[in-house]
């Protein structure tokens, strides 16, 4: 395999410079003549998916999803995700108090895991995706570390659903009429929405935008 990586100082041979477009669905590379590049709708010759140089509306859609997620992040953490009613009284659990309860149950590895999945990861996703989005607008910066950050965010995103699943199982299991009773709280709905929205935002973001503003290019 001959990498098309040029010597330092030269422009990298990107698909954009060569007039070659990549189909995001089937990964076929198609040469688009300069005359056809302005056409409104180009289709991949192999699988007939629309061909774009970059994902259309990537920045604005990603920003809108992130903003919605950031707003919902507040109720997700403040509202209870779970109401527990036992003979001895009632109890409301938020995401954070759930982690502390797990710590008191004597299971610190699991508490650490839930702390990361439910508190660190969503915050990390909101902050880093927001920063990555802004970095594509500003002056060129090294793309490799930004690209690593993006891939990490995309990889860990799904694990935030952990708490939603745990609460679901608890609510189904603890149904002993007057003795003990668990109900799902509104916080769980907001939290689930944050996870889904940040996952969508990460998927919408076009990683190639980071390399378009690479300082080395």
């Amino acid at each position: 395999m001959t990498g098309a990586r040029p010597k330092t100082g030269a422009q990298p041979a990107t698909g954009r410079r060569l007039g070659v477009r990549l189909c995001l669905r089937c990964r076929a590379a198609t040469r688009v003549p300069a005359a056809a590049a302005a056409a409104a709708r180009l289709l991949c010759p192999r699988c007939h998916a629309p061909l774009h140089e970059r994902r259309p509306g990537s920045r604005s859609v990603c920003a809108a999803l992130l903003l919605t997620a950031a707003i919902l992040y507040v109720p997700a953490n403040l509202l209870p995700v779970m109401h527990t009613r036992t003979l001895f009284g009632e109890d409301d659990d938020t995401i954070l108090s759930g982690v502390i309860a797990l710590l008191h149950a004597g299971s610190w590895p699991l508490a650490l895991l839930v702390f990361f999945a439910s508190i660190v990861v969503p915050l990390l996703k909101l902050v880093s995706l927001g920063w990555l989005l802004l970095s594509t607008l500003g002056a060129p910066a090294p793309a490799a570390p930004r690209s690593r950050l993006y891939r990490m965010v995309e990889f860990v995103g799904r694990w935030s659903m952990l708490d939603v699943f745990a609460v679901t199982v608890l609510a189904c299991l603890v149904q002993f009429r007057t003795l003990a009773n668990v109900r799902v709280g509104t916080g769980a709905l907001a939290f689930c929405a944050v996870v889904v929205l940040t996952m969508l935002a990460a998927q919408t973001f076009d990683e190639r935008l980071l390399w378009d503003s690479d300082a080395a290019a």
Partner: protein
Amino acid sequence: MTSVIVCPACDLAHRVRRPAGAARFRCTRCRAELYRTHDVHGDVVLALCASAVVLLALGLAYPLIALRVEDTTRAATLTGAAVVLFQQGYGALAAVVLLTTVLLPLAQVAALAALLLAPRGGPAARGARWVAVLSAVRPWAMSEVFVLGVLVAAVKLAGVADVVPGISVYAYSAFMVIVTALGVLAPPDQLWRWLEHGR
């Protein structure tokens, strides 16, 4: 045969001599995976799909875990969990849980089986439908996260009551392992190889 592969992550173009056998290339600039195929026979993958369906059926039929308090026992099933959410007025949450734990992992398995069973030589666009379904569904199939969620719930209850694991925990965990393996065995380039040359 040389062809051009463009990196989906950084747009760098590579001139590649496509090998006939299994191969794996990474982008020379950003290290993203550019191309990956393997030599596992399509029939093996189909067999894995079939066992995944059987294991999911077992996982749906039996309780995940049960809780014993004094002399009453309460068991949670996969679908029961979604039903309880719905009854408590969280229909959207019930839909997300059902989709991410049952329907989308199943769709992933079904789309892969459909692709492998599709008649060869037809227009590529027809097979492309399954490639598109697979790549769209994969991030939303969260079996492994759910298994860990069940574990978290069990630990939270272990101090207060007797937690009894059910058949479904084992069946669903095995399903999760197979679905993960199927994800590794189905990179886009391999899917196209199956579509073009048969399994």
